[in-house]
């Protein structure tokens, strides 16, 4: 490994050190402690997965900057390795899914990232995610010491060392490129031409102003086309915000298919629940009667609160669903047929949206791309599992 690491090893396990035969904790620990650890295991898994995808995205965006692309691919492999290490540990403690990593990732790496400026932006964002990973592993490392969990201790130490090495690599790249990017006049058209990935199908690199409108239109076109073909009305006002969100913020957790479907379902239920509570199921509607019935007004207010609550409880926050809520509470959706049509429309948008955001985020099969069969990461994982190390004399 690296020279600095020789000074790091105190009680810490070595990368390929002998497997300890000592019993591992978890079986005997209390459920409360297991739950506490599980929360951070979930965070670590989420952060690792996001960082792996982000590194692969950066590797493809900047494939013509060989050092960036090569290094990012290597380090994405490290992330796959860490996720593999975590599997048996999750088996002992469990894992609580965390939204934080996905939200963090959604705030980063967006926009049009080409050329030197785009590269610096991406390196900064990867650094932020790596910092997040490093603190998460530090928390687990410290916990593992008190728990005397040698396996978790070793994994946390080695994963954190990879974070340190990633940050060192990022800093070196930034040191090299920043002066030439900031202090030399750029010819934008030439830089763009020299920076776009070679393969035309690298949709991850399509600039936002091109991707956003086209993706939004594509998503909404699906219910529109099916509607016209089937002769049933499947287009509703509340599908517009969903299509726009998926197109503009594909990395946001709110854009996930789960959030779309569960969010809108919650909206429908909340809307009807509000109407039931205020007895306004058959009140005049805003749409046909052009009056705002007081029962519908208060039902709308209550229904919105319920929609938000359902979204939070089911980890299915999806703001556009609130439009469905009001569509129901204000009387736009009344019959079972209406509900069925809306549900079909939502499902179609959710499927189309999920496909497009996966393409956009290069997440079709990140694990396979980070660890092709027979490749290096597979070998790393095997090493870790079948460590045969015996320290030689001397």
């Amino acid at each position, binding site marked *: 490994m690296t*020279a*600095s690491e020789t000074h790091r090893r105190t009680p810490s396990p070595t990368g390929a050190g002998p497997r300890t035969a000592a019993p591992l904790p978890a079986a005997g620990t209390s459920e409360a402690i297991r739950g506490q650890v599980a929360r951070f295991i979930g965070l670590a898994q989420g952060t690792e997965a996001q960082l792996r995808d982000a590194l692969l995205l950066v590797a493809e965006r900047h494939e013509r*900057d060989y050092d960036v692309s090569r290094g990012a691919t290597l380090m994405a492999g490290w992330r796959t390795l860490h996720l593999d290490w975590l599997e048996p540990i999750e088996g002992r403690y469990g894992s609580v899914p965390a939204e934080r990593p996905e939200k963090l990732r959604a705030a980063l790496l967006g926009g049009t990232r080409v050329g030197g400026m785009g590269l610096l932006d991406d390196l900064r964002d990867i650094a932020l995610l790596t910092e997040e990973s490093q603190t998460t592993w530090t928390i687990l490392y410290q916990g593992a010491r008190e728990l005397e969990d040698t396996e978790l201790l070793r994994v946390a130490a080695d994963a954190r060392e990879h974070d340190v*090495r990633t940050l060192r690599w990022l800093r070196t790249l930034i040191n090299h490129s920043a*002066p030439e990017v900031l202090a030399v006049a*750029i*010819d934008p058209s030439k830089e763009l031409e*020299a920076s776009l990935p070679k393969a035309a199908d690298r949709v991850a690199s399509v600039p936002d102003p091109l991707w956003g409108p086209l993706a939004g239109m594509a998503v909404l076109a699906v219910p529109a086309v099916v509607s016209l073909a089937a002769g049933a009305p499947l287009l509703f006002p509340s599908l517009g915000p969903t299509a726009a969100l998926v197109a503009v913020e594909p990395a946001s957790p709110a854009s996930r298919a789960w959030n779309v479907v569960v969010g809108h379902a919650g909206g429908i239920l909340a809307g009807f629940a509000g109407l039931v509570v205020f007895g306004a199921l058959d009140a005049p509607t805003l749409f046909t009667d052009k009056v705002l019935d007081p029962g519908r007004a208060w039902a709308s207010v209550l229904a919105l609160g319920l929609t938000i609550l359902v979204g939070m409880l089911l980890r299915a926050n999806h703001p556009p669903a609130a439009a469905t809520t009001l569509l129901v509470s204000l009387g736009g959706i009344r019959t079972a047929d209406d509900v069925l049509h809306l549900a079909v429309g939502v499902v179609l948008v959710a499927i189309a949206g999920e496909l497009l955001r996966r393409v956009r985020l290069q997440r079709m099969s990140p694990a396979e791309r980070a660890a092709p069969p027979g*490749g290096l990461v597979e070998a790393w994982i095997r090493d870790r599992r079948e460590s045969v190390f015996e320290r*030689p004399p001397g």
Partner: protein
Amino acid sequence: MHSAPEPRAPGLGATRDAIDDPWGPRTPHPGSAAIDWPTRVDARITAQPERWVHSVCVLCSTGCGMDVAVADGRLVGVRGRAEDRVNHGRLGPKGLHGWEANQTADRLTRPLVRRHGELVETSWDEALTLVTTKAREARERHGKGAVGFYNSGQLMLEEYYTLAVLAEAGFGTANVDGNTRLCTATASTALIESFGTDGAPGSFRDFDLTDAMFLVGHNMASTQTVLWSRVLDRLDGPNRPRLVVVDPRPTVPARRADVHLAPRPGTNVALLNGLLRLIIERGWIDSAFVEAHTTGFEELVTTVDPWTPERVETVARVPAARLEEAAEILGTSPTLVSTCLQGVYQSLQATAAAVQVNNLHLVRGLIGKPGATVFQMNGQPSAQNTRECGVNGEFIAFRNWHNPDHLADTARVWNVEPSTLPAWTPPTDAMHIWRYCETGQIRFLWIMATNPAVSLPELGRIHRILEAEEPFVVVTDAWLTETARRADVVLPAAIWAEKTGCMTNADRTVHLSDKAIEPPGDARPDLEILLEVAQRMDFRDRDGQPLITWRDAEGAFEAWKACSKGRPCDYSGMTYAKLRERSSIQWPCNEEHPEGRERLYEDGVFNTSPDYCETYGHDITTGGAYEPNEYAAMDPGGRAFIKGAEYLPPPEEPDDEYPMLLTTGRVTYHFHTRTKTGRVPALAAAAPETFLEIHPDDAARLHIEEGDEVEVGSRRGSAFAPARLTGIEPGVVFMPFHYGDWDEPGRERAANRLTMTGWDPVSKQPHFKYAAVRCRPTGRRAETNAPRQAAEAEPLAAPAGGRR
């Protein structure tokens, strides 16, 4: 056995035929400290000399001392200097014949500028006015980083030093690198990462004294013929040392080896980790040395642990039994000389692999002793000088860019403000210089004495960059090379024998090469051109005086002595007079070592102290640089670094579309892109055409026969070459990289049309020796029968063959 010909009195003609026998007759010896390598003076003269002029051969990194013969203002021959410590009189085929290139009719004699798309002759004044106008415009309008310099491994020390001051203190640009990035950058980084600073620890004399040799990716018989003669005199003598060779091709050294390991291209780290694992496991290490003089051993043990012989066999395809045989020789020999060259540097994980060879010597304690050293070899004659002078990505005189004291010291020597020196970043490596040309940041690029239009990877891309409107490209060369043809200004240069200056070889030996003849036409030495540009740019020091004060080569050398004083490459004890008198002197040469120092690190103390080291080191897997505080925390205290390295997968794997691996390299009779050697009749005739080496099994499968023209294609382009069936590893093909199209415009045969834009993360040296390709016969027979190179063909005798 032949005795050496009578020294010092060669008659007309040649003392030997170096084309048919590149290494010459044997002078075997048993390899004892009491016996010097016997002399054998090689000479070749074509007319009666009027006088002999002190010089050095410039066609590889060995640096053989020679005298050149002059008659009637022309070169008429050469002879080796018997007293020279490097060659003891010998010269190789390129040395004996290469001088003829100076006098070819197509030398450039007048400056050329591009007008309406054509290069037309002009005056020096007009050409230099254009150059300085464009340079000033780029710098003032677009920033210091809009100017770039791409120099060479074939200029002289005095020229590099002048360029360093001009570019760094004058233009203030960090974009200065040489084509030495393609050949010796890894030698430099490997030495720095392990030992703290650049500089070969040993002496060529260690080949005479050693019990075993380990050639890693180094076809010494072709790249350094005289050094191979030195090795042959041991291999053919009593008390023969054992020889281990790592090469995917059955080269001449491979066929002389006790153990030949032929790994799959790109797997050097796996192979070397396997060797280190065996040596550690068997206890063949010098624990006392490791304890006292190294740091990092524990990590190495952990890193190499998974590399069992069986695992190495799976990844590198080297039989486990072969690996064990090699490990036994390397682990038990009382002394050992290892050398690395392009098979390491131009392959994947270059620095990581080269450092493992250093590690082998560190764990065995075999360094700094007679017969025990490691050579991180150079390719070009003055590659060492580009590194010393800080125009190959290092800071001047092996100073440390990140050390404020070193920066202040340099500013003192140059009498400039430290803030004006581009120390905010390590110097831009060549691959990034070309990248910045591609993205438009560099608008003015000056290429000196090299030919990137043939030598860089992915030539299609390089040609597009050179042919674009920007950058404005200035080329200094002696001939209209493939690069010069694409330039905006071409400046005719005087070359070796037409100017005076020093060159330092791969064992720190400094030679002076005196001017023997006048350059043709208006051609001028690069030094003069640089000095005039400095004057025209009116660069000043902090007292308002001219930045560069010297006017000639000796003045530049004296300035360099002051700059190098106190650093590892200390020249302060040398003078031109002393260099002429002694034939050659190794650095450091100073008050402590007035006659130079043969070996470094004899006391086991390395140059790793934080205030002396050349960099703070890198993660050799990722290229991430350590900060000063991290380095201080490692507290090497004069101990060498042992840095282990994980094996990484290649950037592209062979697949159905591109199922084979291409590796590129050199032939005995040519140097670089044949700019000189292709113009020398005997050398050109010995190796007239490129070729594709392929295993007979692969050839049969692809319906390719000896001499058939083959189209070789990669993801980047294609090239055509006649097939040559040899014992190369199945699945691997080889092409020499020398052949461009200056002599046959439009010929698509350059191997670098296929190679990839990818490089080592530490040394930034490109991966010339790894590319996935496909091969198919075109149905044509080659016009020239390619396989005629004696030094390659005889030992490579095709298994399917019967050709000769």
